[in-house]
Structures are given as structure tokens and as C-alpha cells.
């Protein structure tokens, strides 16, 4: 087991716990940057897609994993980010301004929406946000003059200092753009986690009473969490728009909201890794199944909806196997290796566990 000898307060504050993990992440980033030369356009497109979902996952993770507020309506904020970015660009703003502006606008609107929503807990919040996601569809239609209603909008070509970026024309550049955004969002997320705000989020999640007694303003903290979450989600939404090329009222449906929540739970609530792991499962697994099906039973459609059905079954197995999400399993495997050869075989056998009501607030 690696033991960190803490010699200064800096130690806990640092971005990476030790040099080893710094090296691992540095290597990861180098590989990520070089990826377009390593894999073909198909896989590059898939990786890009996974990264976009991971960014969206980070957004929802901030709210659900860190602050404990489950939202089933984040597709609405994807839509908001997407539409506002495209509209800003149509108004002539360069991408480098329009994109962050879209994030900020989504964050602000998210905060405003949060004001009534923060009094809600658990399932009430989940269903209220779900209603929001359903209404978003209609609101886009009703706001036809701005959103172009059911006909939708086309994503313009991104231009950064004369470099044109387009998902299909220049998939590698688009990938790098997404990668940069993903890294920035991860850094911001990590920074918030290691500062007072991040701890306030966790405090609100674990015990509202004692958070209050410690001087944390519950509503304000939740609203801020909502805001940051929506801002990151908005950025992901904008990228999703560029990825699809077209957005309509049907693009960001309730199914997307549900998928997002599913993603972070399967990845592992409350961790940055979880958002990325979850994105791989949710965004790439269906594609993987489609590839697998071809090699196993050949092309064509032997059984309609097979991929979705199998996808559902695999998700069920994932949850049964590891209710704490993939990140939970990842940690266990790491601990196992670190303890090697002293780990017991049944070290992680699940001990019986019991729940108490969540109806007390």
C-alpha cells in the first residue's frame, strides 16, 4: 500500500495526491491528445461523444453526487446551452465568446429555476425537474421565433482564430476542442471540491440540520450548486449540438435526462471518475453492442430492439454487481492491488446493510 506521509498542509490541498498519480494523469492526457493519430474516424467520433456525455455527467454529478439533489431534467439545460450557443453565434458572436456565454446563461437560468426547486427533496425534486424537461420541449416550440420551433436549428461551423472546426469535416479538431473543454470542466470541478464550497455541498447532502448549524445557507448553497451544474451541462449541450449538427425540440428529450442520471449512478455518484466511467457505459455500450451483434449474429435485424433490450440487461447486471457504481468497484480493485498479497478473498463481500427512511428532513 502506498502511504502518503503528510508533511505539510499543502499536501491535502494539492491537485494530485502524489507524483505517481500525477504521472498517470499526465500520461493519460498525452495519449488523449495523440488519439486522432492512433484510432480511426469512427472510434474518434465515439470517443468525442463519450467525452461530451462525460462533461454533461460532470454537470449533473455536481448537483446529484456532490449536493445530493437528484435531477431528472437536465436535458432541458442541455437544450438551453445548445440553443443559446447557436443563437449567439448566429448573432455574430465568435465561438470563443458564444460558448462560455451559453454556459453562463444556462447557469444563471438554472439558478433562477432552482429558487423554487430547492425546497424540494428526493423524488419530489426529481419529478419536478422531469416536468421541466418535458415542458422544455413545448417551450422550444412555443418560442418558435427564436428557436425555429419544430424545424430546429443547424449548428454553425466553429471558427477559432480562423481555424474551422466541424464535427464531420474535421473530426480531429472537434475532438481536441471537446477534450479541452472536458479538461477545463474537470479542473473546475476538482477545484470546487477542494475548496469551502465543495465541502458545503457535501454538508448539505449529508445533513441539512448540521450544515445549517455550521452557518451554511442551505438554499443559497443548493442554488449555487444548481447554477454550476447547469452551466457545465449547458456547455455539454452546446457541444452536443455541434456534434449532431441539428437541434430540434425533440433532440433533448426526457429520455436523455433519464440516461444522464443513469450514467452518473452507474459510474459512481460523487466522483469525477464516475462521470467518465458512466459516459463510457452509456454512450459507448449501445454502439459496442451493435458491433458485437454484427460479429455474433451477422448484420441485419434478427430481433428488433435487441440492442436496447441487452443494454437494459447489462445495466441491471452492472447495478446488481456494484450498486456503488463502477468507481466503487475501481476503488476496491485498487485497494486489493495495493494490499497485495495480503488481501483476503472475500474482503469485499457485501456485509448485510440496512436503510432508514429518507422522509425525515
Amino acid at each position: 500500500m502506498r502511504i502518503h506521509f503528510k508533511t505539510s498542509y499543502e499536501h491535502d490541498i494539492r491537485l494530485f495526491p502524489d507524483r505517481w498519480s500525477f504521472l498517470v494523469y499526465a500520461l493519460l492526457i498525452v495519449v488523449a491528445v495523440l488519439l486522432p493519430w492512433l484510432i480511426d474516424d469512427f472510434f474518434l467520433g465515439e470517443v468525442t461523444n463519450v467525452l461530451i456525455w462525460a462533461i454533461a455527467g460532470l454537470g449533473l454529478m455536481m448537483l446529484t453526487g456532490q449536493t445530493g439533489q437528484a435531477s431528472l431534467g437536465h436535458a432541458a439545460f442541455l437544450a438551453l446551452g445548445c440553443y443559446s450557443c447557436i443563437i449567439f453565434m448566429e448573432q455574430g458572436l465568435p465561438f470563443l465568446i458564444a460558448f462560455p456565454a451559453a454556459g453562463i446563461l444556462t447557469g444563471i437560468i438554472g439558478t433562477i429555476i432552482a429558487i423554487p426547486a430547492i425546497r424540494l427533496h428526493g423524488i419530489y425534486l426529481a419529478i419536478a425537474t422531469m416536468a421541466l424537461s418535458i415542458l422544455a420541449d413545448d417551450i422550444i416550440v412555443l418560442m418558435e421565433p427564436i428557436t425555429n420551433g419544430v424545424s430546429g436549428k443547424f449548428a454553425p461551423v466553429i471558427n477559432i482564430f480562423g481555424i474551422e472546426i466541424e464535427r464531420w469535416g474535421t473530426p480531429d479538431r472537434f475532438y481536441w476542442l471537446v477534450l479541452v473543454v472536458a479538461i477545463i470542466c474537470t479542473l473546475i470541478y476538482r477545484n470546487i471540491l477542494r475548496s469551502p464550497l465543495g465541502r458545503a455541498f457535501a454538508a448539505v447532502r449529508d445533513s441539512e440540520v448540521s450544515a445549517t448549524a455550521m452557518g451554511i445557507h442551505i438554499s443559497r448553497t443548493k442554488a449555487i450548486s444548481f447554477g454550476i451544474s447547469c452551466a457545465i451541462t449547458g456547455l455539454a449541450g452546446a457541444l452536443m449540438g455541434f456534434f449532431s449538427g441539428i437541434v430540434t425540440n425533440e433532440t433533448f428529450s426526457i429520455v436523455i435526462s433519464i440516461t444522464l442520471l443513469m450514467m452518473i449512478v452507474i459510474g459512481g455518484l460523487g466522483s469525477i471518475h464516475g462521470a467518465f466511467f458512466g459516459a463510457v457505459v452509456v454512450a459507448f455500450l449501445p454502439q459496442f453492442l451493435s458491433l458485437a451483434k454484427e460479429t455474433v449474429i451477422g448484420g441485419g435485424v434478427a430481433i428488433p430492439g435487441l440492442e436496447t433490450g441487452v443494454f437494459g440487461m447489462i445495466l441491471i447486471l452492472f447495478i446488481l454487481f456494484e450498486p456503488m457504481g463502477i468507481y466503487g468497484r475501481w476503488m476496491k480493485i485498487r485497494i486489493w492491488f495495493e494490499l497485495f498479497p495480503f488481501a483476503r478473498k472475500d474482503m469485499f463481500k457485501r456485509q448485510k446493510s440496512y436503510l432508514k427512511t429518507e422522509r425525515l428532513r
Partner: protein
Amino acid sequence: MSNLLEIKNATLKFGGVTAVNDLTFSVEEGEVYAIVGPNGAGKSTVFNLISRFYDPYAGSINFDGNNLLDRNADAVADLGIARTFQNIELFDHATVLQNLLVGRHRHRSTNLLQEALFTSKVRREEKRHREAVEEVIDFLDLQPYRDKMIAGLPYGVRKVVELGRALASGPRLLLLDEPASGLSVEETQDMRWWIDDIRKQMGITVLMVEHDMGLVSGVSDRVLALADGAKLAEGTPAQVQSDPAVIEAYLGAGAA
């Protein structure tokens, strides 16, 4: 000495139950003031009134010249009032260190933007918070548990962590709800020294609820005995312990 906390004619009812009944008392700066009384006498409710979790039906609560009733629950901590809970309310999915750091929340002076970028100011502040917290950890001998999750800690340690969290906020008034319940004799003795040091070395005023009369008489300057939400007796520990009404309602004949 001046009164730090003043409660006047406070009354609170839950349906038909009068939990606090026209209660008046005050806590002087620098003293240890204990509240004792039978189960259900309204002791925790008094704490909850001070924490602003409940609104009193009548009466006033003043802290160092501030009317607490003008404030929201989260603004109470800003004045320098910290508390622990009878049933332990910690942040279960965080480590001991993080729990204590949350105690520092009222000293936060950075904003969202600075924190998102982790500017040097945030870094400086974080260091300062950690220094303060490490002092508390040293004081309460919590080093072995620093990076442990709360969820797996024994009851007694959690009690101490909760005390630490309250201390980390650097309060002027500390409210302790049954600090020694569930602690062994040895740990209760530690608690006694800690409370003594908190008052003497840190100059923090302590208001506590406790059933362990040994601890109460060992550390407190004054004791208030409560029954059915109203004052039964008030005075030095010895006076209260020998009060027949208190013996009858609370201590029992067997108590020495």
C-alpha cells in the same frame, strides 16, 4: 462579568405538549452552564430555540446584544455559536478532516469564481483553515481518525468529532447536547478535561445538557434544573443536587 446569552420568558408548544414553558435564564461570558432535567423536560428544545430551528411562541433570545430571533438558523453560527447534537449529526460520507473543515465555513472569505480557479487566496485560506483544524485535532487526540470516513467510526469517536467540528468554527458560545452520553468512564474524564480547557484556555463559554452528574458537578459553574419546560432549580451544582425537588424528579433517591 456580563451576560452572553439571555433567554427571557421563552415558550414553545408542540400541539398539546408545552416543551418550554415561560423559561428565563442567562449564561455569563466565560462560564460553564449546565442544564439538567428529566427526559422530555425540554432541554434539547432550548438548544433548538437558540439554534433558531424553532420559533418560540413568546419570549426573547439575545446573544451578546443581538436579538437572535431576527436571524435565520444559518446566521446564528456567524455570531459565534456552535453546537453538537444529542443524536450526532455528522456528515457521514466525508472524512473526519472534511467534517472539521466544514466547521470553518463561517470563516470563508473567498467566492465561487476564486474557488473555481483555486487562486492563491483560496490556497492561503485553505492553509489557514487546516492550521486551525489541526489544532483541534491535536487538542482532541483525533490524529488516528483524520482521514477516516465518519460512517465507520465508533459512537464515542463520533461524539468527539462533533465536538471538534463545533470547536473548529472558533465559537464564543458552545452548546453541547449530552457530550458524555455513550462515553465510557475514561472517555468521560477526557471530556471533562476538554471542557475545562475549552473554557479556561480558549475562553469559550459553554452551555451544556448532560445527565452524568459527575461531569456536571465537575465542570459547571452553574446548573439549571428543568422539568416540564420550566425552571425547577438554579444554582451551583451542589445546590441543585441537593434540592429535594430535583432529587425527586430527576436524580432519584439512590443518587448520592
